[in-house]
Every structure is written in C-alpha cells, then in structure tokens.
C-alpha cells in the first residue's frame, strides 16, 4: 500500500476527533454492557468446562453459531445440586461482566439449571451413575438381615408417618421386638447430615441388629435427603444391615440402591422384620413335625417286622413242631381211612353184582317165575321130552314151593 493512500483515506474522516485511551474506551464499554445486561437468562450448551483448585468454574456457553465465556464463582456453584458437564444444555441466570485488563467480557453465572430436565432429577441420575460405578450398589456388599432380630433401630422423624406405620405393624403382629428410634429431621437443609450421623451413631452404639432408615411419602424435594451422597456413604459404611424405607412403592432413592434391603414403604419394612419371625415359628414347627413323623414311621416299621418274626419263631418251638407233626399225622390217618373205606365199598358192590348173576342162573329162580320141573320116578331124571314117559306113568313135579305127584294121561309129541 502506498503511503499516499493512507493520507487520502484520512482526508475523508471528520476533522474534529475525540481520542480515547484504551482504558477510557474499555471503561465505557464496561459501563454500557454491565448496565444493560443485568439479571438476564441465557440458554446454551456448556463446552470447555474448567474447574481449577480455586473452586471457580470457567466455561463457554455456545449455540450453533456463536459462543460466550462464562464464569460461575465458587460462592454460587457450591449450591449446585447437579454436576455441570461439557455438552450439557443449560439455562443460566446472571449478568455480563467485563474484565478490563484483558478487554474481555463474560457472563458471571449466579444460577444454573439443566435444560429440559429438573436439576434434582439430573443430580439424582448423576449421583446414581457415579455410585454405581464405584460399586456402592454391588450385591456383593449387601449384608444379610439377621434371622431373628430383637433390637431394631429406626432412623426417621419422631412425629412422621414412618415411625407410626412401623410401630403399627409391629403392634398388630404382637411381635416382641425392641424398637429404638433415633429421631432426625427427614427433610430440609440439615436432614442428610442428621441421617448420616444417626447411622454412624447407631453403629457406634452397637446394640442394634437391624436398622430401618426412611420416611413417609412426599415430593422429590421432600425425599431429597435420601438422594444425597452423605446418606448413601453412611449406609454403605454401616456394619449393621440397613433396610431403606423411603416414601411410597414407586419412589426409588439413592438410599434404596445402597441399602442391604429396600422396603417399598415403612410399613413394609416393619413387615420384613416381623414376618421373618412368623416364618421361623412355622419352620420350627414343620421341622418338629417331620422329625416326629419320621420316627413314628420307623417305629411302626420295626413293630411290623417284629411281629412277623415272632410268628415265624413260634412255629419253630418244640411245641410248635409237635403240633405240626400231629397235624400231618391226622391228615395221613384221614386219607388212610377214606382210602380203605372206598376199597371196601368197591368190593361190596362187586360182590353184590356177582351174587345177583348167580341168582339168575339158579333153577330155583326159574321155578320162581312159574316154571316147574318134571322128573321120572324113581330115577328123578328130568323129563325133557314127552316120549320119555308112557301113558299112566307117575311123575314127580317140582314147583317153586313143594312137589306134586302127577299121572300122565295124555301125550302129545
């Protein structure tokens, strides 16, 4: 560029000129910016977040096209419930401040909230994730509840619904339990610290077998103490097993994840402690029942076997043997008797038949039927032919009964 050009362009500038020093200009800019942009809300995405040991928080807020530096001083950022992170969309409240020494401006943030999600919700998610990674929810760290607790500690408000509900359940079930209440604030500024200290105190005191920590239902803000890291760490460090009992069935707090057992409500926590006792009563009864019936069965089996053996043994005594032999003898005698009788009968029948046959062949039998024998005299020869006698001969006729003498009067051949 030629030097003349400079002059020529300078020639076009107004002649009366006011020259600021850098300080003067910066000071005016500061006045304008800081006077105008006070108490403003700005939304943007966090990037380039830095948190040096001073505790102040430096970051850049940006959108698609532009960016602006921001600072959140320690006095403001220590009240944050959630942890700001690069990439997080936030809405901040604050003012523009100008740092004169470097001629830079930035937003001094007094309040910050996550955009689209409640700050508490985000804080909850963040703490949950962090503690989960640290292993605070690990099942391996869960302590078993004692089978039969006799001293139950309760950390809750002395006047809230939780202690009322727990005592009601225990009273209704006639449980002979000792309940030791450690009264604490369950909401408000001091609640988390009080609850954490109570857990430590109960552990130090040491006369407790199981600890219920909780409160009745409420909003997420009301339940907040149970989402605080202090409480989570105290629960994790407790040597006494802890049942968490916060709010209603649907409320899940960080305390619930760390606790050894989560009860959906304070009443349910009472039930857990008492029910185990009922079940143990039942279990003991059942065991005794099984023991008795198994022994009874065994004795019965022995008794049956014994009476069976006794029966067999009886048959083997001398008396028994004699009886047995007698029985055998009787049986044989009986058979003998029957057998000989049968033979006699057979013989008798055969004899009768023979006698019958004999009778039929006897001449007497023929006479009985009306025939007669005619015999010559004196020879007594039986006359079979009419020629054997002459007319006038006398013959002897033998009848069945008696004899008659007859004279032949006629012959016919």
């Amino acid at each position, binding site marked *: 560029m030629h030097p003349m050009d400079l002059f020529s362009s300078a020639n076009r500038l107004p002649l009366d000129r006011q020259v600021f020093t850098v300080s003067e200009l910066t000071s005016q800019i500061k006045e304008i910016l800081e006077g105008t942009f006070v108490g403003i809300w700005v939304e943007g995405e966090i990037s380039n977040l830095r948190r040096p040991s001073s505790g102040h928080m430096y970051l850049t807020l940006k959108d698609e096209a532009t960016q602006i530096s921001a600072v959140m001083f320690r006095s403001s950022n220590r009240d944050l419930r959630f942890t700001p992170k690069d990439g997080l969309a936030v809405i901040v409240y604050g003012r523009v401040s100008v740092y004169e020494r470097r001629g830079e401006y930035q937003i001094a943030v007094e309040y910050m909230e996550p955009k689209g999600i409640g700050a508490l919700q985000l804080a909850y998610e963040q703490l949950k994730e962090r503690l989960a990674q640290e292993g605070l929810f690990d099942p391996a760290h869960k302590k078993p509840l004692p089978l039969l607790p006799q001293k139950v*500690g309760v950390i809750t408000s*002395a006047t809230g619904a939780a202690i009322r509900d727990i005592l009601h359940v225990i009273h209704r079930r006639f449980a002979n339990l*000792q309940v*030791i209440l450690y009264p604490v604030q369950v909401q408000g500024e001091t609640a988390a610290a009080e609850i954490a200290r109570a857990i430590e105190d109960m552990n130090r005191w040491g006369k407790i077998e199981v600890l219920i920590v909780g409160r009745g239902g409420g909003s997420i803000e009301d339940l907040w103490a149970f989402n605080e890291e202090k409480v989570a760490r105290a629960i994790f460090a407790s040597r006494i097993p802890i049942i968490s009992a916060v709010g209603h069935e649907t409320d899940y707090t960080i305390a619930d994840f760390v606790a050894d057992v989560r009860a959906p409500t304070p009443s349910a926590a009472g039930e857990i402690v008492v029910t185990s006792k009922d079940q143990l009563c039942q279990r003991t009864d059942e065991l005794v029942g099984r023991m008795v019936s198994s022994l009874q069965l*065994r004795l019965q089996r022995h008794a049956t076997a014994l009476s069976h053996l006794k029966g067999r043994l009886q048959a083997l005594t001398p008396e028994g043997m004699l009886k047995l032999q007698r029985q055998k003898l009787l049986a044989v005698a009986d058979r003998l008797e029957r057998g000989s009788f049968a033979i006699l009968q057979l013989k008798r029948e055969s004899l009768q038949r023979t006698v019958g046959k004999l009778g039929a062949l006897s001449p007497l039998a023929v006479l009985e039927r009306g025939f007669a024998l005619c015999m010559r005299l004196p020879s007594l020869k039986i006359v079979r032919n009419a020629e054997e006698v002459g007319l006038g001969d006398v013959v002897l006729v033998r009848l069945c009964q008696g004899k008659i003498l007859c004279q032949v009067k006629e012959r016919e051949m």
Partner: protein
Amino acid sequence: MEEIPFEEALRQLEAIVVKLETGSLLLEEALQAFEEGVRLARICSKRLEEGEKKISVLLRSENGELVEGPFEAVPEREDEA
C-alpha cells in the same frame, strides 16, 4: 449349651431332621437324635418367644453421648407432611 443362638439351633435341628429322614441311623441313634431335636426345637421356640416388647428413643447429648430414653419423651413436632 442352652445359650446357643437361634440360627445355630435351627441349623442343627434341620440337620437332625434330614438324618432321621434318610433313615441311615441305628434305632438307638435315631432315638437319641430325636431327643436332641426336641431339645433344639425348644430352644428355637424359646428364642422366638423371648425378648420384651419395648419402644425407646436414642438421643444424642451435647457432647455426642448417646442416651436411651422412653419413647414418650420425644417432643412433638411436625416436620413432615
């Protein structure tokens, strides 16, 4: 011997029942085991029945000492909706 804790008594009772049920014991042994079982069951029942019903409050004094007191001693206050 009477001072064994509930858990231990129950565990032993369970073991005895299993032994009796498998029938591996001689009769004499079984009878002895039964007697022992009855004794353990009594201990269990006693443990279940014993213990008083009591409600108390643990309060922290100024110097951090823990003092047990009666439940009624708690001042009324409404700090929970």
